[in-house]
């Protein structure tokens, strides 16, 4: 172990923007030691603060929203009025101080604020800047406003969810934003790697739409190659049978799949239907697909009297691919997630203790951590402007008096 050494120790990041797509990149990097400053203003706080529940005790408030804090843990929070010339000067100082700027405004907005990449690199030539938006910075629809929840439909995800003869289905929240933030983090880290080698910065133009398509790359290549259009198929899979979800006792469900006749025989044995496992008509994938109703009846008869997690344990013990369909509440009690410390509780001045999401990967030598709750609005103005930027008390008071931090 390198006690105290963090993967991104010394890397300084400033975020202009809000909601999920930009700030989630910063959170991922902050969890591994980057110093991340999230910029908002008093008049235009991050949209996740007031537009999205939940709130502490269900009472909306600028500092009581859990949606905002969930994506902004381990960061410093400052307020800068970017409509105020003094505020823009302050923002410029921050941009000169940092290694990486992350912004997710509509294309062109950051340029009009005088904080575009071309301008910033004049005084910070090694700067890395990530611009992430719906469509990317160029193209005929570059200026399209939009929410990730709807963009997930344009990128094909909703159309691929649901029954073949039914309507498309929603995915929870702005699904595609998190695809783009994950891929955006790889781009930022790759740019950092190049900067370590060459000293040069980079401008990274990320289209959330295009990122989403990487998650459907096989289906898209299939269409380009054969003309075959991918369709939603409920829970079916062309290479496995059975393959689906089955209702259990109460409100629980299990998901299971069989990828060979041997696995199917094990499943049949586990549910006391060895007769099905011996049936030669069910010994092939095609045979099992043709007899889906019969197999599903047998499975449902077994699962409906069993608690989902217990049923999953029994079938796993028999060597069958299975897991309970975890509810969101189950994610807090799943022993596997507890074992890998999926949730870190940190105290927020208004919300109190809140569970923050740990990274999906573990580094053996430089582990990540949630170091602090999400900041209250403007919580770190003095720390960031005085300690990080080195402003004197008089300078800080002067810019504050001029409304730069409103």
């Amino acid at each position: 172990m390198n006690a105290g050494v963090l993967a991104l120790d010394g890397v300084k990041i400033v975020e202009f923007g809000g909601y999920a797509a930009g700030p989630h990149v910063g959170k991922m990097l902050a969890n591994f030691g980057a110093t991340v400053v999230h910029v908002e203003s008093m008049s235009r706080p991050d949209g996740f603060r007031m537009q999205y529940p939940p709130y502490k005790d269900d009472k909306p408030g600028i500092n009581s929203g859990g949606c905002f804090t969930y994506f902004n843990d381990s960061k410093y929070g400052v307020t800068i009025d970017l409509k105020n010339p003094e505020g823009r000067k302050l923002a410029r100082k921050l941009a000169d101080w940092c290694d990486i700027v992350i912004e997710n405004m509509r294309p062109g907005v950051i340029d009009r604020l005088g904080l575009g990449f071309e301008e910033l690199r004049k005084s910070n030539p090694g700067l890395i800047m990530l611009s992430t938006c719906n469509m990317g910075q160029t193209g005929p629809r570059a200026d399209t406003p939009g929410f990730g929840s709807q963009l997930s439909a344009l990128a094909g995800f909703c159309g691929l969810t649901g029954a073949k003869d039914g309507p498309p289905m929603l995915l929870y929240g702005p699904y595609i934003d998190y695809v783009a933030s994950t891929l955006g983090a790889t781009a930022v880290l790759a740019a950092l790697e190049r900067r370590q080698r060459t000293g040069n910065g980079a401008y990274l133009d990320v289209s959330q739409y295009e990122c989403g398509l990487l998650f459907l790359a096989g289906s898209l290549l299939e269409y380009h190659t054969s003309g075959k259009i991918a369709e939603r198929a409920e829970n079916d899979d062309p290479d496995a049978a059975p393959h689906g979800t089955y209702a259990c006792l109460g409100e629980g469900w299990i998901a299971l799949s069989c990828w060979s006749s041997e696995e199917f025989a094990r499943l049949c044995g586990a549910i006391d239907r060895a007769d099905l496992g011996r049936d030669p008509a069910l010994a092939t994938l095609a045979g099992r697909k043709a007899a889906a109703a019969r197999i599903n009846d047998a499975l449902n008869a077994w699962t409906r009297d069993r608690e989902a997690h217990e049923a999953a344990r029994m079938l796993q013990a028999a060597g069958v691919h299975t897991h309970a369909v975890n509810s969101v509440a189950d994610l807090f009690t799943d022993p596997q997630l507890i074992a890998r410390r999926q949730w870190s509780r940190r105290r927020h001045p208004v919300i109190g203790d809140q569970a923050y999401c740990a990274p999906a990967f573990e580094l053996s030598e430089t582990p990540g951590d949630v170091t602090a709750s999400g900041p209250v609005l403007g919580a770190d103005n003095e720390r960031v402007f005085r300690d990080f930027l080195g402003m004197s008390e008089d300078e800080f008071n002067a810019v504050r008096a001029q409304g730069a931090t409103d």
Partner: protein
Amino acid sequence: MLQQTGRIGRGPSFSGSNMEPMLQGCMVLDYTGRMGWLAGRLLADLGAEVTKFEAQGADVSSADWRALNVNKRLVRVDPADPDGRRALDQYAATADILIATPATADEADLYDYARLSAVNKRLIVVAITPFGLTGPKTGWQATDIEIMAAGGAMALAGEPDGAPLRVSATQSYAWAGSQAAVGALMALAARWRTGRGQRVVVSAQSAVITALSHAPTFVDMLGITPTRAGAYMTGRSVTGAKYRVFWPCRDGYINFIVYGGAAGRRTNEQLVAWMRERGFDLGPLGDIDWARFTPTRASQAEVDSMELPIGRFIGSLTKREFLEEAHRREMLGYPVSNTADIAADPQLEARGFWQDLPGPDGTERHCGCFVVVDGVRPPLVRPADDTGKIRRQARET
């Protein structure tokens, strides 16, 4: 002939060393199965030299394999064989990153970090598994559907009173692979500070939690468990009214929601103007003051009466018509695209997203690199299964 990519983006004109690929010189060994393919693809697209190892005879013809292993060098060797194991150790001696999806005890031993770090202390070893390498479910078997279930995503997709659903194209592997790419590069950043590699363990179950947005906060803060919402948006009105999200149109569906707020106001005003221009009956829509409208107070009866004329209007449109006109009017909403719609989208064409590379039956059109760097989309430089191509070319000559 590989497709040349020109400058398409905003940003500066870089020259000299700055134009070199971001991960130039980074050697990646990709020993993954399906769960990890995207990780190496992302690193390759960012400029790493990625070698994909497959056993002799392993099928590399599926669309998924080709789409996610393009831009990598293919080497046919089975690491389970003594020769393959020796080759692995030889490659590992000079590589930067090794990515694997160990599924058996033998594979866990083969890709064991302690063993490999003795070969190369600077090596970063990334292990991607359904549940990680420690904990009570480490040995559990899981494919996409079980991982999506374990990660909570299926509980949030489907009709409220119906079965939990997965996306019909595998997603959990993409979540795991992309998180593995982040982890690998995080370890690469750490190596500048420590001088050593390290082990990166990715839990696919945990990676899927990334997709849930802030749903866990409802449980944590209010004790409310979010559930699947089907094709409707709920929870927006104090009356409990539900709003339609997916609207049948002439050739599929449109995702459109009656929003409030500034963006909702513009969208609603433009929709009414568009309907009026087309001569559609507005019903109650014509009398609504959108500046004062708030969806949080509408009753179900009011929502239904609003949605009736909207449904008739959207039913008259094609997906492409809606996409183009909604953009022109700066309205929120998108068509529910299928792969054919996406393939024909002029936005993607204009940004040079697709890249054509040689394939077994002519040209293959791939998704390009996900990011435009310094105004240029990094080109895919190696076709999928290029050794096969070399063999074919040798036969032809």
